[in-house]
């Protein structure tokens, strides 16, 4: 029988305070190996503090944090060998070229090199598409390129866990897309990536699991699909009897999304009481359709459907349809349009899944 793999990151009952201010309050969650884990929360939620604890830069006041089984407080040297940390707004050295910058860190990390050849520097530059800029002075580079350089730096010593704090903040759309593609590539290499951001669109396409943090607490953590299902169940009022356990959030024994019972987000995710025989509540949702037909014709077909509550013209020639139901209702709408010999170009949820989860799980309170 295979031994269960160690979580790449395991955080249990982490608390920290600055002065009298509790920045982290009993934070617990796991990040499994090979995941791209989105760490989401409004500014000031405690994401960076958690990340600094993970990166061994800040010692927690309470709790236990492990990276690949190594305690960040007791074995920081070992943890540092396994992590690559890219801080938010990291600085670069003046008057050094890209190659010199990376060679310096290769030497500092004591990574293997053959003689004067820095193969690992070449490989990192190639991976991050910096080879053509190897002789450029780093301080003259654009923000996007500097972010790439930071990524190249954290990859030099072959870390298994990458901790990236707001990696795409202040980047233009192209640079964001490039960073996102790079993250996918890193995941394919078997890296575990913990990615913090408050920009949800930045994370939506890449993350496999998320933890949502607010006011120093984890509100919900786990794989996106499971959190989404839990929210749907809760919305319908047919919650199961599962009572989440805060400390073992998304742990191997409790792989579902964990919800902090002490935090009361809106809607209340903790109202999972044993299923009572009450009628199923239907949830109202919206989708955006692109159909190659006049709006009036599409509207006429869709308003005939009993679950559609409104049809209106949206931006960019889309049609916004509000309906009460789930994915089956969407399928019926598409079927009705196709049966009417209309060409359906696209169907998109009005918000992506992550945005929906975030909005429903948080109250939007800032600290």
């Amino acid at each position: 029988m295979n031994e269960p793999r160690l979580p790449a990151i395991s955080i249990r009952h982490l608390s920290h305070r600055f002065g009298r201010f509790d920045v982290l309050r009993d934070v617990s969650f796991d990040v499994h190996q090979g995941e791209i884990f989105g760490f989401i929360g409004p500014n000031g939620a405690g994401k960076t503090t958690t990340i600094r604890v993970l990166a061994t830069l800040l010692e927690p006041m309470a709790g236990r944090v492990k990276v690949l089984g190594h305690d960040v407080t007791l074995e920081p040297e070992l943890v540092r060998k396994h992590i690559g940390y890219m801080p938010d707004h990291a600085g670069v050295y003046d008057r050094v070229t890209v190659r010199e910058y990376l060679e310096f860190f290769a030497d500092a990390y004591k990574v293997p090199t053959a003689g004067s050849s820095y193969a690992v520097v070449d490989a990192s530059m190639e991976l991050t598409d910096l080879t053509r800029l190897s002789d450029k002075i780093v301080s003259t580079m654009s923000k996007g390129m500097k972010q790439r350089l930071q990524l190249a730096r954290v990859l030099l010593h072959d870390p298994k866990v990458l901790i990236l704090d707001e990696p795409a903040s202040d980047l233009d759309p192209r640079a964001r897309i490039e960073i996102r593609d790079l993250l996918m590539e890193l995941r394919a290499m078997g890296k575990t990536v913990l990615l913090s951001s408050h920009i949800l669109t930045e994370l939506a396409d890449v993350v496999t699991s998320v933890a949502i943090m607010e006011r120093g607490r984890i509100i919900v953590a786990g794989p996106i699909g499971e959190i989404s299902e839990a929210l749907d169940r809760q919305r319908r009022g047919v919650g199961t009897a599962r009572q989440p356990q805060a400390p073992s959030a998304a742990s191997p024994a409790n792989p579902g999304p964990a919800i902090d019972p002490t935090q009361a987000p809106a809607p209340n995710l903790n109202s999972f009481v044993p299923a009572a025989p009450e009628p199923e509540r239907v949830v109202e949702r919206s989708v955006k359709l692109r159909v190659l037909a006049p709006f009036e014709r599409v509207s006429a077909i869709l308003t005939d459907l009993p679950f559609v509550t409104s049809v209106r013209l949206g931006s960019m020639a889309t049609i916004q349809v509000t309906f009460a139901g789930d994915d089956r209702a969407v399928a019926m709408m598409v079927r009705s349009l196709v049966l009417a010999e209309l060409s359906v170009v696209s169907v998109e949820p009005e918000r992506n899944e992550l945005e929906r989860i975030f909005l429903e799980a948080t109250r939007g309170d800032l600290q």
Partner: protein
Amino acid sequence: MNAQSPHPSVHDPAPPSQRMPGRTELGWLQSLLANPNAIWIREVRQAARLDRTPWLLFGITLLLSLLVASIGGTASSSNISPAKVGMAVSQVFFSLAYGVVTLVGPAVAANTIAAEREGRTWEALVLTGMTPAQIARGKFLSSFTTLSLYIAAIAPIGALSFAFGGTTATETIVGFILLFMLAALWVAFGLAMSAAMNSLRGALVLTLILAIVIGPILYMIFGPAMSSLAHEHWSQLPAGLPIWLPVAYTRANFGIDYLILLVALPFVVLSLPAWFLYEATVANLSSVTDDRSSGLKRWFIVSTCAGGGLATAIPIAVGGGRAPPSDPASLAAHTGLWCLSFFFGFCALLFVGEPSGPSRRLTTQWAKTNTSALTRALGPGLARTFTLVMLLETGAFGAAIFGGVAAMTAFHKGDGVLPIVLSGATLWAHIIFFTGLCAWLRARSDSPMGARVIALAIMLALVVVPWSFAAVGGIATKQDEWLALGATNPFYVVVILGQLAATSPNYFLLTAGYISILVFGALGLVFFALAQRKAHSINVAAELHYAQLDAALAQEESATTP
């Protein structure tokens, strides 16, 4: 990854560097040459690309050349002999070079660590696994290299003195060696300041202000003032020269006094402060739960031995000459005791930074690596640190008193022994009191800085307040007995020495001095015992807390593990 191949990572850590094969087999020099400090290389490279460096070098060299040449030209046009002009030119050059080193060295060094912090590159550097000591060495080497460049650029101006004579090549070379040693000291000072501050601007301004204030004071003390003392001992040395040590090396008579005063003393005065600044830098770069104590304690042990040794040897080396208490041996013995007092007072305040015990991280590491008892004893911990400080204080004072007594016995048949013993005992008692007080305040306070301020305030109050009452009472009643109030003050030594020298001593004042020795010595030990007890209870509570936390986490883990 790896970055070079798309294979998933394995769990083993990266293999050892192939670029540095058998690093442990290399000696430190080979290792330094084969694998130079990465920070040093990077910063030298950065400095070489700085456009303003050549202009600065050129400007300073030009200014110094013009200044020295104009002084030489003016002097040579007068009736002064060429040899004297040469000596003056040499003195001016080295004095100006000292000024350059005093200003440029700290400024360059203050720029380094604070700039990393402010430029947000510090975290990346720390996470590479470079130790604080490696970072400090890299920063030191890069700053020292830059400063050496300045010294090398102005060096040819020093050769101008040869055109006039009056100074030898050996003196000039020794002058440059001392200049480089001073440069190392000033760089270490700048680094220590930089390591203690987060703001680049703050580090630069404070470092420069301190350098501008301290530099001239040290110049006057170790220059003209020491030169006069050296002239008293070796009459062939000119008095009042600011740069007298290179001259002394070539002109003083060789003997035990030469070795102690011209070799050992300058070496200790230059190297021990530099070492302290280095250890302070490393400690400030380390996390609070790391071992920030061992380096400072090693420095303290060596410094105490060196200081105690010199305080013992110097009275014997300088010999008699006049009748005590104004003979050189007696003066040297008293000076040595006072120097030890200030040194130990400083160290007591320094070690107020000690935590109550070693961190959990450190005890885990010690257990894993089977760390020796000696290494653990040098590690963090209030009780063990202040035990060491008190033992070494007692040992050093004992040795210094012994040196003074031996010198008095040898040169004056025991005359002047009692003042030295009483002076030593009074200073020892006050230092033991101050050390115990510092330990107790630290044990009761979360903030080392708060404990330091309170300790200094108490000491200041003990020095000033009773002394003021004594002065007022003495003036009002014209009775000397009021002076006994000042026995709370270490400077009461002066009263004791005065009474001992008097033909009819006031025994009331002497008795007050003896009582103060006993009371302050005992109070110091009581404070120390209380501090030890408090630190022990803090450590026990912390251990209990961690044990409970471990048990709770283990219980939770076993409950959630399938």
